[in-house]
């Protein structure tokens, strides 16, 4: 019995970590979908997530430092303000990273794969450089912002707990900060935008066949620039969430954000470019990343093998997709190709 209970508790811890990682991956993948739907394969996602992470931390530290006197008089409002500033910084800085990519690939027509990889090198460098220069690493903490990001939505938790008093469903489902749910909202919004709106249709047209979209009178550059930059902004929120929720508003020099960034690129394929499929795919990837936690010491090095699973699953999906040739599962037609109107 006690074995079962300890399994249950490690299961619930695993679930919490999985959802945290899943959310980071989800943000990254959603941004990448938006970018790829416009035909831009941005392999700079890991770099952009790093930029978002450091952007949010720098923004939060700056704002908290500049306005610490206001904290007492504003109360909860101050926390909300801190979170807003942090999100704006993360989004804005990531968009700048996206803008660099967009300028190089769209205006200067450089190769997307190569530019993306360079952006990953650059973003990783700049984030870790700034993060490492923040004074003593691991002690400078954006406390108010991080606590606010991590705060449970208390009324909701209490209400659900009261409703299901045996299982405490509220504390089980809503034991995360608001960004976890925000990511799901973004996914639904992205799905709605891509499939139900005219602008979304035009964007998909640009990604499918740029020349045709151009002939139909769609402003190619505007669509490509906006989808890449906004996509980068959304991806960057993943880095922001990682710093604020998972590592408590501190900075750590590790490769985890980069690894999650590549998982985000993988998830886009896994979900066959569909935002809704990303939601459960992200949690599945998160779960697979932490699965070794559930069955510790199955055999020596089993954790390493388990962590391979997300990539293996993605490969399987990639093979299945190309095998079945269903048109709705295929990558956007002009993905990765630069467009020059006079060259057809």
């Amino acid at each position, binding site marked *: 019995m006690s074995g079962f209970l300890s399994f249950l508790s490690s299961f619930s811890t695993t679930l919490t970590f999985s959802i945290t990682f899943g959310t980071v991956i989800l943000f990254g993948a959603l941004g990448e979908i938006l970018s790829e739907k416009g035909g831009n394969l941005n392999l700079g996602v890991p770099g952009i997530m790093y930029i978002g992470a450091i952007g949010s931390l720098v923004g939060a530290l700056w704002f908290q430092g500049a306005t610490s006197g206001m904290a007492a008089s504003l109360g909860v409002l101050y926390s909300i303000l801190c979170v807003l500033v942090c999100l704006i910084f993360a989004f804005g800085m990531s968009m700048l990273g996206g803008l660099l990519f967009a300028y190089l690939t769209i205006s200067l027509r450089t190769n997307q794969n190569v530019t993306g*990889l360079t952006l990953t090198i650059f973003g990783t460098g700049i984030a870790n450089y700034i993060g490492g220069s923040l004074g003593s690493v691991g002690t400078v903490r954006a406390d108010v912002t991080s606590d606010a990001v991590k705060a449970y939505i208390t009324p909701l938790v209490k209400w659900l707990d009261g409703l299901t008093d045996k299982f405490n469903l509220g504390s089980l489902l809503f034991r995360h900060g608001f960004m976890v749910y925000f990511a799901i909202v973004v996914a639904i919004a992205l799905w709605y935008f891509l499939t139900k709106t005219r602008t979304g249709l035009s964007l998909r047209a640009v990604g499918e066949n740029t020349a045709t979209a151009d002939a139909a009178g769609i402003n190619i550059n505007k669509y490509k620039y906006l989808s890449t930059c906004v996509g980068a902004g959304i991806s960057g929120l993943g880095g922001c969430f990682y710093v604020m929720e998972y590592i408590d508003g501190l900075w750590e020099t590790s490769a985890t954000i980069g690894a999650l960034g590549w998982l985000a690129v993988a998830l886009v394929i896994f979900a066959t470019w569909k935002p809704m499929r990303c939601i459960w795919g992200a949690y599945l990837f998160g779960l697979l990343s932490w699965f070794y936690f559930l069955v510790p010491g199955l055999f*020596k090095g089993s954790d390493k093998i388990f962590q391979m699973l997300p990539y293996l699953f993605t490969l399987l999906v990639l093979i299945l997709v190309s095998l079945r040739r269903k048109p709705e599962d295929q990558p956007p037609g002009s993905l990765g190709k630069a467009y020059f109107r006079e060259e057809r």
Partner: protein
Amino acid sequence: MIRITKRDGISSLLSVAIRVIAVIAALILCLIITFLFTGRDPLRVLSEMVGGSFGTSKRMWEFLQRTMILSCIAVGLAPAFKMHFWNVGAEGQMLMGGLGALILMKFCWVIPSLPLLILMALLAILFGAVWGMIPGFFKAKWNANETLFTLMMNYIAIQIVLYFCTIWEGTVGTVKIGIVNGEAGAPSYHKGWIGEMFTGNFNDKDFMWLVLIVLLVVVAMWAYLRYTKQGYEISVVGDSVNTAKYAGIRVNKVYVRSMAISGGVCGFAGFLAVSAVSRTLTDLTADGRGFTAIIIAWLAHTNPYLMLVFAALYTFMELAGKQMASAFQLNDYYSKILTGIVLFFVLGCEFFTNYKVHISKKHKGGAAK
């Protein structure tokens, strides 16, 4: 107004000039940024930059060693890129090659030195080739997107290497294999190490072997792409798959074969990194160089000799950044910023080699478009 037209061709002088200007502009930007960060005298910064690669003989050998391994990976990518196959899996192919070399080095050191090294190289090539052939096969068979496929193969390789690092870890809990055959006095001492097995003791000059071997690979790849029938097939497939089909070239076979060669050379780079430099294997044996090599191979337009040049430039910037980081108490990631800036400039300048920008004042006033 500004109008852009595609160039028909470009004189090699102009294309070199554009790139040199881009590199110089990037270097100036790097100097300015370093000046802003540190406030040091720009001349001092410049001297530290150069000193990073050429300051001492040790650093020079480090520069050569890094340049050569990077070139070897980039050269491995050349056949794939030439047939417009986006092999972004060099990182994984190199790691698998390193694993192949390490297995023999760790368990079969009783074999005499020279045959052991040859066997290590062969197993590394085999491992890398298999890792490259898998995406090649799926591209040929079902047209699976090779960029994404090879990308995923990297992370599978990293996890495999991490797995072996765990089960073969030297000290429990470190997840590191540690230096293999490094125990002085043991019969396995220095077995499978390129360099020391001939001279006995480690010396920076032993990297000479590495330099010579990689130069050989570079020339061989140049000749293969330029003078062999297979090299010709690769360039036809790269230009147009349909032309290749009509000419009776079996495109699928070319995909798989070229990816085997591509992966094999990257695997060989893994052998060099393990046997000549680190003498161990970690998940950082490739350390992102598989990705950097993609940028280098692409910038060099699949010309193996140009790859040497770009690899040297990249390594120079990397070491310059490291040197400045230690000289001015910046953190280590500074060199990634600098290399990133240089690469962005060199990438961006490709635009001016491919396109011509016309600026005319004729339409000023917006009367006509």
